[in-house]
């Protein structure tokens, strides 16, 4: 392997890691607890409590994620949940990410994990998803051309506004199926994680503005209200 090639791949890996860090930071800032206020309390389910309590990224998580992903797909198919993109990559990414974030928030509030570990957990999850999508695409014959790879893998980094929109109903369905005091713990955890992330996200936004680029009104409203 020549030096120039080595430098290119090291630089690309660095850009991937840094980009994922920025993306996940802003996403954390968007997960807000406000929408949990109005929900009715329904019958708590043991499976939901077990999901929240289980080790983050353990094998038990995948079953719950499959249920929620199927729910999104079925609702879209029935015409009751419009999606701009209903690809398996987008649906699996949103289910995986939102449920992981909800668990992380809960376990921050219970003290099972430290707030300092949240960022690394979410970055690692996003990196794992990106490489999984790339791996499957290449296995399925995707030509290794930059734009084709970009198009395939970008499905695992959906537009942040869309993620924020779809996260709300997922979060709602977790919260209505746990005991009221557990819902309060989830709310508290989301508030803590989002508050820390908002500070970091604002620094990102300021840096973007300094380059002369504009930041969308939707994001300014969510971060600076």
């Amino acid at each position, binding site marked *: 392997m020549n030096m120039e090639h080595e430098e290119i*791949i090291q630089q690309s890996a660095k850009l991937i890691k840094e980009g994922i860090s920025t993306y996940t930071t802003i996403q954390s800032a968007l997960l807000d607890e406000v929408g949990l206020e109005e929900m009715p309390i329904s019958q708590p389910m043991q499976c939901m409590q077990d999901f929240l309590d289980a080790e983050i990224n353990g094998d038990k998580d995948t079953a719950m*994620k499959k249920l929620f992903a199927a729910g999104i797909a*079925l609702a879209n198919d029935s015409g009751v949940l419009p999606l701009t993109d209903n690809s398996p990559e987008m649906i699996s990414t949103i*289910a995986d990410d939102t449920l992981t974030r909800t668990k992380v928030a809960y376990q921050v509030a219970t003290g099972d994990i430290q707030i300092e570990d949240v960022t690394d957990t979410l970055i690692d999850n996003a990196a794992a998803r990106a*490489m999984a999508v790339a791996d499957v695409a290449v296995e399925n014959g995707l030509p290794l*051309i930059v734009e084709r790879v970009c198009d395939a893998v*970008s499905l695992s980094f959906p537009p942040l506004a869309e993620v924020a929109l779809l996260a709300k109903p997922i979060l709602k369905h977790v919260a209505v199926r746990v005991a009221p005091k557990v819902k309060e713990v989830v709310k508290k955890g989301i508030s803590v994680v989002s508050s820390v992330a908002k500070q970091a996200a604002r620094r990102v936004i300021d840096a973007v503005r300094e380059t002369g680029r504009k930041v969308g009104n939707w994001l300014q409203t969510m971060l600076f209200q």
Partner: protein
Amino acid sequence: MAKSYDEIMAALLEAYEAHPEMDVEQIIAQVSAEIGASENCQKTIQETSALLDKFQEKRTSLAAAHEEGDTTQKWILLEANRITEGKSEEEKNNLLEGIAKAVNKGVESIESEE
């Protein structure tokens, strides 16, 4: 009449809670049939489930890499090498550049005026 998203999620979660002996894919298939999911939707669900398994596989690999003292960045490189085994240097570069571009596209979505 189409079920609402809330009704669909309730059906899935209640079936999952009531049948711990059943595999989650069986539960999903059962509820999908009751709702009358299209063939296209069933295919999407199967592919989505397969991807979720793949995500978990990669997370396990990344966790093992951390145990060995490797960083996430290094794991990304090792994975890229594995995915492009037998391919040219240009193709390896293209994979990583393509992924970097995809991430950047996600970050740039903060500039949307919506």
